[in-house]
């Protein structure tokens, strides 16, 4: 800590009475719905300049550099809209389930919320997260490198409950289409094994209803799968025998390989991690004790271990994991560090319970080249300079 300022007797912040200690504060329910302190205003979701040309078909990134634990405050949840977000009237919202089913059905919100529901904590990551970094360093901070990532407690009815309710065709039904009620009518195909596993038709997020930006009043939750499949303002589920090749699975969210072909229907978010403090664009306040902390996640299950390197990958130390460690949820890791004022190269590496190890940029590029935009789960490197500045770098 800095030496006490002011009088040698001590710190004026202690010796002098502060207004909050000598006044009557504000009443309860001054705000029926509360907000963060004004001192937290720097932490906002933000666009990355130049990433998109219009801001209603764009992304806002969550400020991971300032978040704690695993729950993302809903007000800071990342956004990805293709035709802007809408304030849907829940009284007029409907969900239709049809296609290869015995009885095509319509559900109101009243109906859905009478069905057995579950609550589960899961991460959501956009398939394009870290997409700007395939070829080289492009953006300065973890907000822009990894901020299309959030984690919430979702509440809703299992999609399988609805499919059973409509008597879906177990022999022929191999895929479902999910469609949104917004202008883009976002559509994505989900394979039936996913649909029957842990997919939810969710209305709750972190204890309250979904936010309008996240699909109020209904969104598909497809644990482990890229965000675009988590269709917002969900209004329709069709059961079919073939995938749909919708715009966002035939023109976008396809991964260009070095052979000039696109991988289509790439969906699973493989194990990944990133150090959020210290991270790019931050400056260490002083030498000595400092926690290296970050997030790890896997679309295939639980995080088994996270290793941290301070020397650019030459040596690694297992980090502490916070509980609970949940399947397809963010896991918070930390490692105590004493910064000695010398340059350092910080990295983290996630291992999931399938044994999969998060790869280096080099390994990933060897297989996928540098143009695939999506599913960049490479190990992130942050350089700490002797002046304390941290920056985004990539190693050879």
């Amino acid at each position, binding site marked *: 800590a800095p030496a006490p300022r002011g009088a040698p007797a001590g710190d004026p912040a202690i010796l002098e009475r502060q207004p909050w200690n000598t006044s009557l504060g504000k009443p309860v329910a001054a705000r029926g719905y509360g907000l963060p302190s004004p001192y937290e205003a720097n932490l906002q979701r933000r666009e990355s300049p*130049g990433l998109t040309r219009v801001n209603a078909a764009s992304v806002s990134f969550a400020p991971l550099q300032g978040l704690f634990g695993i729950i993302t405050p809903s007000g800071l949840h990342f956004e990805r809209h293709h035709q802007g977000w809408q304030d849907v009237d829940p009284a007029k919202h409907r969900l239709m389930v049809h296609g290869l089913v015995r009885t095509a*059905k319509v559900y109101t919100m009243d109906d859905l919320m009478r069905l057995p529901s579950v609550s589960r904590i899961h991460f959501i990551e956009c398939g394009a997260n870290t997409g700007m970094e395939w070829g080289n360093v492009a953006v*300065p901070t973890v907000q822009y490198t990894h901020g299309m990532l959030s984690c919430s407690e979702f509440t809703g009815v299992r999609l399988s409950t609805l499919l059973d309710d409509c008597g879906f065709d177990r022999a022929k039904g191999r895929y479902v289409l999910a469609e949104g009620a917004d202008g883009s009518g976002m559509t994505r195909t989900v394979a039936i094994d996913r649909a029957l596993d842990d997919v939810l038709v969710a209305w709750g997020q972190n204890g309250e209803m979904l936010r309008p930006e996240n699909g109020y009043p209904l969104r598909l939750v497809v644990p482990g799968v890229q965000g675009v499949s988590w269709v917002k303002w969900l209004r329709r589920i069709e059961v079919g025998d073939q995938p749909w090749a919708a715009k966002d699975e035939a023109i976008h969210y396809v991964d260009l390989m070095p052979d000039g072909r696109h991988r289509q229907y790439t969906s699973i978010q*493989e194990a990944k991690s990133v150090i959020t403090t210290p991270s790019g664009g931050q400056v260490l306040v002083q030498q000595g004790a400092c926690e290296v902390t970050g997030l790890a996640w896997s679309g295939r299950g639980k995080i088994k271990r996270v290793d941290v390197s301070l020397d650019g990958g030459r040596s690694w130390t297992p980090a502490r994991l916070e509980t609970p460690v949940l399947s397809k949820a963010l896991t918070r890791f930390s490692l105590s560090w004493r910064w000695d004022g010398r340059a350092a190269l910080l990295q983290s590496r996630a291992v999931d319970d399938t044994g999969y190890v998060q790869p280096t940029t080099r390994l990933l590029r060897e297989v996928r080249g540098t143009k695939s935009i999506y599913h960049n789960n490479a190990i992130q490197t942050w350089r700490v300079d002797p002046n304390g500045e941290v920056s985004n770098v990539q190693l050879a």
Partner: protein
Amino acid sequence: GEGVGRPATPAEVRAWDIDVRPDFQGLPRGSGSVLRGQEVWDAKCASCHGTFGESNEVFTPLVGGTTAEDQARGRVAALTGNGHPQRTTLMKVATVSTLFDYIRRAMPWDAPRTLTDDDTYAVLAYLLNLGDVVPSDFVLDQDSIRAVQQRLPNRNGMNRAHGLWDVKGRPDVRAIACMKDCGPEPRVASTLPDFARNAHGNLAEQNRTFGPVRGADTTRPAGA
């Protein structure tokens, strides 16, 4: 379900079941000529996508980057190497149904669900003509669209043999969790150029003002 929800009526399913699949399931009857398509395009699309679908103003260009040879092969050559600066829609799309489906559901961007089926056929015909996939006298309908599919420049450009669709799929990259004396001495190969330091705004204003770190003041040079 136990009496929750109710059967959908046929009119309701018709109203919402607008998707069109690669096998053309869901494709409505109708037709439109390139000529009519140009009218629709100039009135409703050109302002955003440019007269020739080439604009980069609101979105990546829709056409460009494909050749007659690509059309013959069904693979777009410019997708390999660094030849073409941007990947246009026509360079990527492998299924013509995708375009019909999407234009009908989502375009014009600021007035989705306002095109008739005939106008959707027409404007798609025009777009395909801009991309040299169909001639100027072409009439697109629920039958001729099948032939168009066979001319799409990148129709053979998709690959589903990968481990990223199935949660139990096999990963393509296999890293090893080495713990010490790993790999070569690290060498930094890419950093943010100095001129980009403040491109995302002043990072001091994007971090908390207390705690173990501050945001760098990017209005000043590094280390200043």
